């Protein structure tokens, strides 16, 4: 057999084996969901997305739509009917006894009733809710800007994140029940479209959409917008909350920054 043909065959075989090997090794590495070094390297791309988007977007507003664009009820996702006793008790009284607790690194801790929240200057916005799964839904949200509440509480200088603690137990496990929580940075917390919503599509916020109060962070994905908000804490770090990654879904591998 001609020498050249053999060389060619070996060359092609080697190249195919090499490329296939790299691909298979990559699949194996990435099939391992543990917090491996490979995953940490890959996830660092999200820090880049966070920095670049923050740099580019400034205070830019998320697009707002018109009432003609509202073509369906807001699709509920995640927990839609919390079974927690304290929540059910509040819901039975139509949330008349609800109070939003604001604490942590603040000069003035607050405990705000629903009437107090609804008496503050409100903001209404028709925005598109983008779920991490890929779907979108347009709805009209009414609520009090988070910045208004924060201004009343007067955050201390070392505050870096707003932590939202929720009523709903999203996971029941051997190691205990897990209640939903989320964190956002101060850029989003003070953004004019970031509101604590109590109204949806010109009516009161329904239970499946997060009554009595839910967060709207319009420049990020749905899982950042905690429903059933019980308390707000201003913190300098979230390392000591949950598994330390800044949210229920974040503790399960989702990116903390969900602007993409």
């Amino acid at each position, binding site marked *: 057999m001609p020498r050249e043909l053999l060389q060619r065959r070996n060359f092609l075989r080697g190249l195919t084996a090499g490329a296939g090997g790299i691909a298979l090794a990559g699949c194996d590495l990435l099939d391992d969901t543990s917090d491996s070094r490979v995953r940490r390297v890959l996830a660092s791309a999200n820090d880049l997305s966070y920095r670049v988007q923050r740099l580019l977007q400034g205070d830019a507003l998320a697009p707002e739509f018109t009432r003609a664009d509202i*073509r369906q009820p807001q699709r509920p996702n995640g927990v839609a009917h919390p079974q927690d006793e304290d929540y059910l008790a509040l819901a039975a009284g139509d949330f008349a006894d609800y109070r939003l607790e604001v604490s942590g690194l603040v000069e003035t801790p607050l405990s705000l009733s629903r009437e107090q929240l609804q008496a503050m200057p409100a903001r209404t916005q028709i925005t598109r809710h983008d779920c991490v799964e890929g*779907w979108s*839904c347009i709805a009209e949200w009414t609520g009090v800007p988070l910045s208004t509440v924060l201004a009343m509480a007067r955050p201390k200088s070392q505050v870096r994140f707003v932590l939202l603690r929720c009523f709903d137990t999203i996971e029941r496990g051997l190691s205990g029940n897990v209640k939903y929580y989320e964190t956002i940075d101060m850029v989003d917390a003070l953004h004019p479209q970031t509101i604590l919503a109590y109204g949806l599509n010109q009516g009161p916020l329904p239970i499946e959409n997060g009554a009595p109060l839910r967060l709207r962070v319009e420049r990020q994905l749905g899982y950042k917008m905690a429903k059933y908000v019980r308390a707000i804490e201003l913190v300098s770090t979230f390392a000591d909350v949950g598994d330390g990654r800044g949210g229920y879904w974040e503790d399960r*591998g989702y990116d903390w920054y969900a602007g993409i």
Partner: protein
Amino acid sequence: MDDRNRQSRRSASPAAGKRGPLIYRQSIWTRTTHWVWAVCLFFLLLSGLQIFNAHPALYLGEQSGFAFDNAVLAIGATQDESGLKGYTEILGWRFDTTGLLGASGEGFLQEVRAFPAWATLPSFQSLADGRVIHFFFAWLLSATLIVWLLASAINGHLRNDLLPRLADLRALPRDLAIHLRFRFHHTGSYNTLQKLAYFGVLFVLLPLMVATGLAMSPGMNATLPWLTDLFVGRQTARTIHFVVMLALVGFFLIHMAMILAADPFNELRSIVTGWYRTDPPKNAKGEEHAA
């Protein structure tokens, strides 16, 4: 006749005078970026299908219709006495795709999932991991595209090799006929179909992929609202992202077929080492020597 020609060329000893000269055809920039893209697109495809599986439907417009119908594609499964049945619905037409789309896996492992385990990364369902993989390689692909664009503008690759010229377009019918008869020429430059294919991938498909990807990002949507408008809404952008993926897979398949048909050793050598064996100088009937 052509096959015989190729056989004789192949079995000829290296000293035979029938072969054309080796030329340095692919610069280090082209070769490096080519392989980085190959790796990126492999991971982007598999992680992209993983992400798609989280909500296996495509829509037109700004939002997804739950109370109205604006879906153009939906993949799902139904259960009957014989087991899971996977279906794919395209523009209202429903196809049974059990085993491939909608429901896949053998026996007890059969499960409801749009794309099967072998086509996704990770193989099990994990939107979180799929996103981490996808965005890492999306950054790498975009960065490599910019590096390649700058290098190719400077070293002349863009102007000399890729940009289709009027003469190329005039030669299109003839070039098409040559390809359909599998009579490939090996020269220092790309033929018309090659130029159109590479130009289309690098200047249409890949930029469209990056742009529709960005148009889906709520953060970028605040920064560049016109980008999402350009694609007539976020869900249309997502649909285009998917269709361009299909086009890239189609390009890949043809790319592989052409390499196999044209002479895999020579083609691979040129994209690995840069050196490419050209046809011997043409005589009066040049085509006779094409292999």
